[in-house]
């Protein structure tokens, strides 16, 4: 028997904290969040527009920036759909079946969350670099992996690997099998059941998982940095490009690129809030 958690008017003074405590705690929390979240975000835009909107636009419209944006989007276009398919398959497998090693599988799915992105990048270099057995064979056949697109996509897949599965799995587990069983007994095939019954039930979780993957894929720095080789115009994604501009003391340029990524992050939060509002109004 859970009572609603809204601190309702029913709580009288003896259970509610005294007003001065409440005000003090709210003030402390807001001050902390302002210092650590709001000011840094505001600073990104203020630095980007330091020399006016014109300089901002100019900084964004350089060929290098545009090619970095193109490459970033391309990485997303490769990695997100693959993780989507995997995430749905893994969530289905774990939610619907019992099998030995299930909790191990869940741990493996969580692993990329806690592995340093640098380690992830290093692993790809070790496996596919020109010094490696596999890398040198591939190079002989004209396939370059490291310091090129394939390694960057792999690194991105690694770091965004858990997102869809992690969002969908708890929901699928909580919902149980009743509706699927009903559909199957009514004569629906497995694919029909999946697309017409199961997927609609978890669509918001899938959507949010994809949004998170996109945000992380566009913003990933460490893993991609290690495997990219920082070749301007060829293997530069937006975050790497921001770094290069910053190291070249192109302050406004770096923050103009950073402001694009910040807008991306803010829209992710907006979508998240919207999804939460849709699912628990």
């Amino acid at each position, binding site marked *: 028997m859970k009572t609603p958690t809204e601190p*309702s008017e029913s709580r009288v003074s*003896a259970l509610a904290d005294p007003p001065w405590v409440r005000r003090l705690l709210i003030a402390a929390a807001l001050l902390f969040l302002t210092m650590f979240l709001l000011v840094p975000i505001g600073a990104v835009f203020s630095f980007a527009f330091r020399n006016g909107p014109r300089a901002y636009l100019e900084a964004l419209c350089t060929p290098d920036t545009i090619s970095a944006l193109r490459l970033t989007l391309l990485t997303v276009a490769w990695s997100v759909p693959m993780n989507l398919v995997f995430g749905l398959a893994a969530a289905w497998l774990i939610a619907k079946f019992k099998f030995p090693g299930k909790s191990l599988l869940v741990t493996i799915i969580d692993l990329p969350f806690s592995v340093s992105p640098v380690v992830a990048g290093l692993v790809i270099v070790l496996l596919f670099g020109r010094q490696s057995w596999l890398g040198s064979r591939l190079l002989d056949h004209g396939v370059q992996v490291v310091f090129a697109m394939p390694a960057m996509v792999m690194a991105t897949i690694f770091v965004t690997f858990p997102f869809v599965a992690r969002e969908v799995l708890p929901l699928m587990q909580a919902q149980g099998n009743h509706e699927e069983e009903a559909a199957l007994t009514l004569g629906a095939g497995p694919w029909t059941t999946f697309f017409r019954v199961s997927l609609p039930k978890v669509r918001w979780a899938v959507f949010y998982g994809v949004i998170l993957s996109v945000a992380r894929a566009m913003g990933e720095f460490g893993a991609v940095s290690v495997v990219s080789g920082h070749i301007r115009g060829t293997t530069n994604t937006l975050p790497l490009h921001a770094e290069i501009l910053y190291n070249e003391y192109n302050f406004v340029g770096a923050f103009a690129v950073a402001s694009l990524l910040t807008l991306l992050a803010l829209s992710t939060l907006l979508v998240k809030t919207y999804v939460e509002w849709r699912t628990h109004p």
Partner: protein
Amino acid sequence: MENTPLSVRLENVTKVFTKSETPAVSDVTFEAPPFGVTSIIGPSGAGKSTVLRLIAGLEAPDIGVVRIAGSDVARTPIQRRGVGLVFQNYALFGHMTVRENIAFGLTVRSRDFFRRLLERRSERDKINERVTDLLRLVQLQGYDDRLPSQLSGGQRQRVAFARALAIEPNVLLLDEPFGALDARVRAELREWLHGLQQQTRVTTLLVTHDQDEALEISQHVVIMQRGKVAQTGSPEDVYDNPVSPEVASFLGANVLRGHVRSGRALVGPVVADAPRGANDGDSVNAFVQPQDVKLTAATSPNDGDVRLGTIERARVVGSRVKVLLLLANGDQVNVEMPRDEFDALAVSEGEQVYLDARSPRVFLGDYSI
């Protein structure tokens, strides 16, 4: 446990929760006398739990006064009201052992730091001793170090009692204390509560939606409906003389429809004096408890005899039989009778019997549930 039992009195108490238009508790006045159990009963949503929370200080009344031992407690914080509240879902502290749960109220009270330093040893011994006494009282010796999650529902309930009693409350408040337990454990705990009451003699208020429970274990009953007090009195009194159709039907009575003719109320098989102020042709209702209906065999029934009823269903429940009868006017009547009496009638489902109702209560108006 040598507290002088104190009375609890509510005077014209009203509590409105914002967002809801009707008050949860509206102009409630009653007194729970010292000693003994006062039960607050009523259907769910009647405001029973809110009354307990108002007494405990978990809510503050919008209007009216709550008095414990005659004094207004509006300015007494929860912590110092001296009420022992047993929650509906027990609200035991899951991370504490049984012993720690029971000792909680005692340890948080001894918070005078310097006194604690000086008396630490003796005080701790005192608390330990008291907890041991309480464990014996609630028959949980040897369960000291269990966590609540390792206890059965009935055992948790008794820990909750012991925890509430530890602070030697002036008043013990029980919110549906047996609600979540199965029938057998309920019956056992009722007995046990009765014994506990005899021992501790603390003024007790019990909230329940189960009228049998209330009638069985209390000396005083407050019936609430839609936030108001409908009737107060001794269990026998409210059972025999319900003041309104609602109370009667809440207490399990059958509702029969009829009308007034020449100063008499004719209600199906029931003929009684018409209520005061009734005119000929007025609608009336009669209320009859299931065990107050007498059945006799109808050997050669005349059709149209108002005393006739058809047996729709007869179910044996242990040593008693529950019979559902259908009257000619379509009213249904529940009857409860000893099994041997029913067997002596030698009737079965679909057959007809004569009804006779003892001590009906007749009210003016047409009441339907």
